[in-house]
């Protein structure tokens, strides 16, 4: 049920101000995006058309706290098929960025580990300029599991077979223990300061 007193008439504009969110109002609710989306097979509640409809109606809180936002693959299938050029893949990214800011501000809770993962990933780039897998895992797993010990157990569970397999094939040696770094790390820091999430 829609409670009209909770609708936010400015939500549309808020999304359309974000890069990638500009085409929101072009949607004519045809469902092409949803029919072709690979995730719907695995997450039956997943419905990008509905997320757009709810956004247009101003159901800000419901949209921003919907955990389905965080299972989008950014695969661009929807974008390629949309007859209205809504750019849904980019649009969902714009909505996720607003959700993330609201969660950081303590206004909503996000029921997904994806924001933790994305941030841990970005921290590697900010520090080293390249992806450092071990640094990423060491930040991600403990934060996801809520403790260092549980995090290390979860990481072992996911990686022990894989790590051994890669090691045997000569794809992960002692070198992988240490980060690859770009020489100009000062510029990485500046890029994140200027363009990163504030």
């Amino acid at each position: 049920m829609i409670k009209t007193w909770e609708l936010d008439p400015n939500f549309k504009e808020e999304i359309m101000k974000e890069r990638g969110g500009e085409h929101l109002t072009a949607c004519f609710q045809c469902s092409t995006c949803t029919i072709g989306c690979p995730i719907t097979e695995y997450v039956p509640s997943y419905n990008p058309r509905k997320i757009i409809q709810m956004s247009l109606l101003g159901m800000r809180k419901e949209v921003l706290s919907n955990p389905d936002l965080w299972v989008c693959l950014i695969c661009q299938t929807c974008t390629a098929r949309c007859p209205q050029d809504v750019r849904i893949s980019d649009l969902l990214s714009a909505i996720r960025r607003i959700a993330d800011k609201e969660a950081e501000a303590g206004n909503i809770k996000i029921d997904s580990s994806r924001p933790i993962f994305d941030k841990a990933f970005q921290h590697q780039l900010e520090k080293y300029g390249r992806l450092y897998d071990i640094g990423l895992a060491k930040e991600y797993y403990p934060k996801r599991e809520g403790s260092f010990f549980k995090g290390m157990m979860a990481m072992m569970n996911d990686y022990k077979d894989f790590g051994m397999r890669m090691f045997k094939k000569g794809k992960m040696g002692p070198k992988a223990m240490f980060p690859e770094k770009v020489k100009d790390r000062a510029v990485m820091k500046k890029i994140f300061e200027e363009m990163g999430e504030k």
Partner: protein
Amino acid sequence: MSVTKLAYYPGCPSDATAIDQDMSTKAVFEKLGVELVEVEDWNCCGAAEVEEPELVYALNARNLAIAEKEGLDIVTPCSICYYNLERSNIALKADDKLRAKVKGIDSSLDYNGKIKAKHVLDVFVNDIGLEELSSKMSKKLNLKVAPYYGCYIGRPPETAFDDPDDPDSMDKLIELMGGEIVPFSQMKTFCCGGPLMMTRSDIAFEMARKILDTAKSAGADCIALACPLCGMMLDGKQADIEKALHVEIDMPVVYITQLLGLALGIDAKELGLNKNAVDTKEILGKVV
């Protein structure tokens, strides 16, 4: 042939999980007489985890600017790197204000929009061309191949270099090498699940399994692909998928650069074919 020299953007997995792709890419271009100059001190493209578009543009402005100084177009074997480099290129070219803002961060981000970013597959099929490639091939691949394209080759429209629903650049290349394409259209552009591997591995594994199963029931000797994240899911994680979902798959997965290398007569070891997680020996026996 018009291409003689390109800037090479290897991408982060190039010295670890996708070292086989990196080795085969370098070996193939050398054999084709195209010089690769690595983008000096390149940084990560942002992958799928950096969602802020302006951050992606700034990160890639640096890579683009380095190649631009050399006067070279960039080539990369990774579909996500390609997507991020080229969408940044398009955004920066179109928007003076954005370019000025990015340049304001640091002078090393001063990019003037003079080059292009390209995917290796695009360079092989559309720049070098099938005729030229064919003239350099010395071996025939007696292989049944499932060509897997994944996400960023045929979409989104502004960076795509192939059809969104039925891409065929890899098909053409494989047929040119003597390979046979197995029926695989419905899986060609289905996402491998990679972006969810660390946060929803249950979904990611099911998606990858669907691709692997389809290739298997189509009778493929191997899957050919052109992205290290797809390679990680379908090859690197295949044994984990088998274990988690209680299935047996055993489907070799190779990079298109490895197949092309074989057809060009390059030694299998030099192409890293002893490094793919699923054994490739049976494939090698069918190269004559």
